[in-house]
């Protein structure tokens, strides 16, 4: 019996039937279909969060100049306060609300009699105290159930205060994971924000999509892009702002880092404004270099291309020695990587460059295309995915602008440029790896026992579980409060942090000597 069977075999038949589609081993040459984006099983310790977490927590959260009022009881707002490390900088022109947490703190009477009145009042108070340019409202579970019309409240407030007010119905029960929330956020931003600005086009302009500036990733990526000569119109949404996002439609090209959370906007920008998008990966040296070269190839400007190579050479030179030192210390190790909906893929190459192979991996809330590649799109809708609105946009004749002719785009695609294309996890994962979608506590624990990875990358909920069993564990959602991990310098940070985690001297101290050395008499200690 192989590892997969050993683990699945412990399930009851009903769960076995469900999970066997989510737990696969890659087979060479096979289509390697995996079940994804389906309901978690009640009672199974999934790592997933909810729709609200995906919408407010992930996509909207980083928009710094927006007063984001969570309409609901206090908890949901509280848990997304300062916890996701999407860094943002103050400047003189932009108000930064990222240190604040806003909620309507709904009480029983609001549930019974409706919460719209309180929401209106909360908006009024926010306007009076902060005078923001934009307010967003995110609803939590009970709001949808009691029927508060937050969109009407938003429209009324927008009228009343002359500012932008956008509502997001991202109740936690919607969809099967955070993923539904990403989609709802994408829709709302597209419908209400993007394209409402009137900035002028600048040369070599790009948007950076699906980059949330965790630990300053976006800043590090931006540093390199600016060094080459690109102008960043907006970042969605790390250190992002309503002020910049309004003008996202004017960029020449969209770069998509986190495919899962933002591909909707990328697609809609293409349809509505004609902007092409490229899948990039700024994590790991190979990824960065390829991505920078792809972008240069898109613009096809000899100066940009030359500058791209010069910057790559320079940046690589700076970190070369250090990286190879860390590689010496990590070479030959194996890793498990379980993160979100895109990151697992992003880190494979970085780990490989350090001599670490991923033997166990998966996603929390990815869709099939994140594993198998966009070529399988469109996917069949099920009852749950149908519940998440999928909006369609039309070409905006006034603002539509293409950088290349369709023919040129086709040429570039033919030349291998990943325009509007993403190959998914399969492109890079080792054929020996075990893959589990919607990974859960039980499977993780069991697979770890069987596959014995040297390092485990995931989030806070399983960090200490895994560490307790003797395996160093690093969070790849929050980078364990380190970072940046993106870009050239980020690769060094990552390599350093992993090396430290693996070599922490306390690992040598885990076993009490009386557990291993024979004591002179009496039994071995402990009350077991």
């Amino acid at each position, binding site marked *: 019996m192989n590892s997969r069977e050993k683990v699945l075999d412990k399930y009851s038949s009903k769960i076995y039937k469900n999970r066997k589609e989510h737990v696969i081993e890659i087979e060479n040459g096979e289509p390697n279909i995996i079940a994804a984006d389906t309901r978690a099983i009640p009672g199974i310790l*999934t790592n997933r969060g909810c729709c609200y*977490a995906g919408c407010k927590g992930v996509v909207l959260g980083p928009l710094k100049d927006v007063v984001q009022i969570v309409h609901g009881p206090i908890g949901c707002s509280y848990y997304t306060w300062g916890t996701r490390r999407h860094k943002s900088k103050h400047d003189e022109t932009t108000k930064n609300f990222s240190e*604040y947490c806003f909620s309507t703190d709904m009480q029983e009477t609001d*549930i019974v009699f409706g919460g719209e009145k309180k929401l209106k009042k*909360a908006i009024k108070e926010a306007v009076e105290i902060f005078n923001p340019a934009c307010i967003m409202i995110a609803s939590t*579970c009970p709001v949808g159930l009691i029927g508060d019309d937050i969109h009407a409240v938003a429209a009324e407030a927008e009228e009343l205060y002359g500012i932008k007010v956008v509502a997001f119905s991202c109740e936690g*029960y919607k969809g099967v994971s955070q993923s539904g929330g990403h989609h709802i956020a994408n829709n709302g931003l597209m419908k209400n924000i993007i394209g409402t600005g009137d900035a002028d086009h600048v040369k070599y302009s790009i948007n950076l999509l699906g980059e949330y500036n965790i630990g300053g990733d976006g800043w590090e990526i931006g540093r390199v892009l600016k060094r080459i000569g690109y102008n960043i119109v907006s970042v969605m949404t790390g250190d992002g702002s309503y002020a910049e996002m309004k003008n996202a439609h004017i960029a020449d090209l969209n770069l998509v880092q986190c495919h899962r959370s933002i591909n909707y906007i990328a697609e809609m920008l293409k349809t509505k404004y004609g902007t092409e998008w490229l899948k990039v990966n700024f994590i790991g040296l190979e990824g960065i270099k390829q991505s920078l070269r792809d972008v240069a190839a898109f613009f096809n400007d000899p100066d940009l291309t030359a500058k791209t190579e010069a910057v790559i050479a320079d940046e690589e030179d700076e970190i070369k020695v250090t990286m190879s030192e860390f590689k010496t210390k990590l070479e030959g190790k194996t890793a498990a990587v379980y993160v979100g909906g895109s990151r697992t893929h992003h880190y494979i190459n970085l780990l490989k460059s350090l001599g670490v192979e991923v033997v166990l991996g998966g996603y929390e809330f990815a869709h099939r295309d994140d594993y198998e590649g966009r070529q399988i799109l469109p996917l069949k809708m099920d009852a749950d995915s149908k519940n998440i609105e999928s909006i369609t946009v039309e070409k905006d004749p006034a603002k539509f602008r293409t950088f290349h002719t369709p023919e040129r785009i086709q040429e570039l695609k033919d030349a291998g440029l990943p325009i509007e294309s993403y190959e998914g996890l399969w492109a890079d994962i080792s054929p020996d790896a075990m893959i589990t979608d919607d990974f859960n506590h039980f499977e993780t624990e069991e697979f770890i026992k069987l596959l014995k990875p040297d390092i485990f990358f995931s989030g806070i*909920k399983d960090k200490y579980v895994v560490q*307790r069993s003797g395996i160093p564990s690093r969070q790849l959602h929050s980078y364990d409060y380190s970072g940046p991990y993106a870009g050239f310098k980020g690769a060094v940070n990552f390599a350093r942090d992993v090396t430290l985690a693996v070599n922490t001297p306390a690992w040598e101290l885990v076993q009490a000597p009386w557990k291993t050395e024979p004591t002179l008499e009496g039994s071995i200690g402990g009350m077991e």
Partner: protein
Amino acid sequence: MLDLTPKEVSERSALRINPLKTCQPVGAMYAALGVHNCMPHSHGSQGCCSFHRMFLTRHFKDPAIASSSSFTEGASVFGGGSNLKTAIKNIFDIYDPDIIAVHTTCLSETIGDDLVTYINDAKIPEGKFVVHTNTPSYVGSHITGFSNMITGLIKYLSENTGIKNGKLALFPGFVNPGDMREMKKIMTLMGVNFTMLPDTSGVMDAPMTGTYSMYPKGGTKIQEIIDLGNCEMSLGLGELTSSMPAEFLDTKCKVPYQTLPLPIGVELTDQYVMALNRFSKNEVPYALEEERGQLVDILLDSHQYTQNKKVAIFGDPDTVLGLAQFALELGMIPKYLATGTPGKFFEEKANALFEKFDAEGCIAKGNMDLFELHQWIKNDGVDLLIGGTHGKYVAKAEDIPLVRAGFPIVDRYVHSYLPIVGYKGGMRLAEMILNTLMDRQDRDCADEDMEMIM
């Protein structure tokens, strides 16, 4: 830092900014983790469960295990009975706890799920238990949820068989495992036979051994919870947190009860010790008397560094009240006491404390947020903040030192292992407060005013 907070305080009745509380379920989950071999279960959308596990793990730096009913949109409309049924089966099948402790969420509460019926209908393996409590997020706070879960456990499990067991039932309040250890140490020193519910020591501060166990050694045993009904009396520490279970145990099983403030500082620990003394009729051992005398000695020796220093204390109501009394024992002025948990009892208790110590110009407010506390401080400053991590922004903005105590502390380590209750906890707290104030003096003084001896 917090540059957008205006000094001028404006009336707010709808917008909560930078809250000093979170929702009931996380408290219920923490309480359930203090039961041995228990799987806390969140009946609602899986996001709640994830948020709570994340949040508890960040405070304790230890795994917080819990399962979810993983509601879909359908369940939200048609009820979560089927989800719970499936969940219960799967949990017992896969994770094999002795008990599942279910709490509700605003989702299942709003749709009116009937948990009693669901659990009655569920297939529960022989010798295993499923209990529940209602924890609507739109009522009370995490403190309420904590109290509710203890009450729920008693409601389902505790029985008065008519034969007293000679034990004291202790409700420790919403405190850290290190505090629970100290409370137990004192009971043991006082020769008290007890059951403490919940007991997260050995669970949320479990040792590293190289092997992971989903259910660590710690936690109150189910049999002990059942036997709570036969206790001689119950003692609830933290009056605002522990009254509910203590009263309920009295109502259900006729176990008389007493409630006391959290034993923080000298006098409140004295009250705890004296209550144990009255219960056990054992004399107070010298070991405790010595610790007490050491703490008093420290307070006397160091008084000039704390006396008349103004402090703002924020966090959970019983913790804030206990810390406030200790601050007063240190001669400090607890200028602002703030909790996010609603309830006027907090303000009454605080005002009684101000009166007892003749502390003038102090304000206590419940159902309050950090934004307002920050505004107060902007208008009339303090020398020290005591509270959880969220205060660090205010601390940095106003350059006021922060001593971390209470819940949550998500940006430091070790705090959950060591007590702030009892005389020993008082020494630790005193050391933290003194070091913080004295470090600040050393930092701020001119070179010529730097003191070698202090």
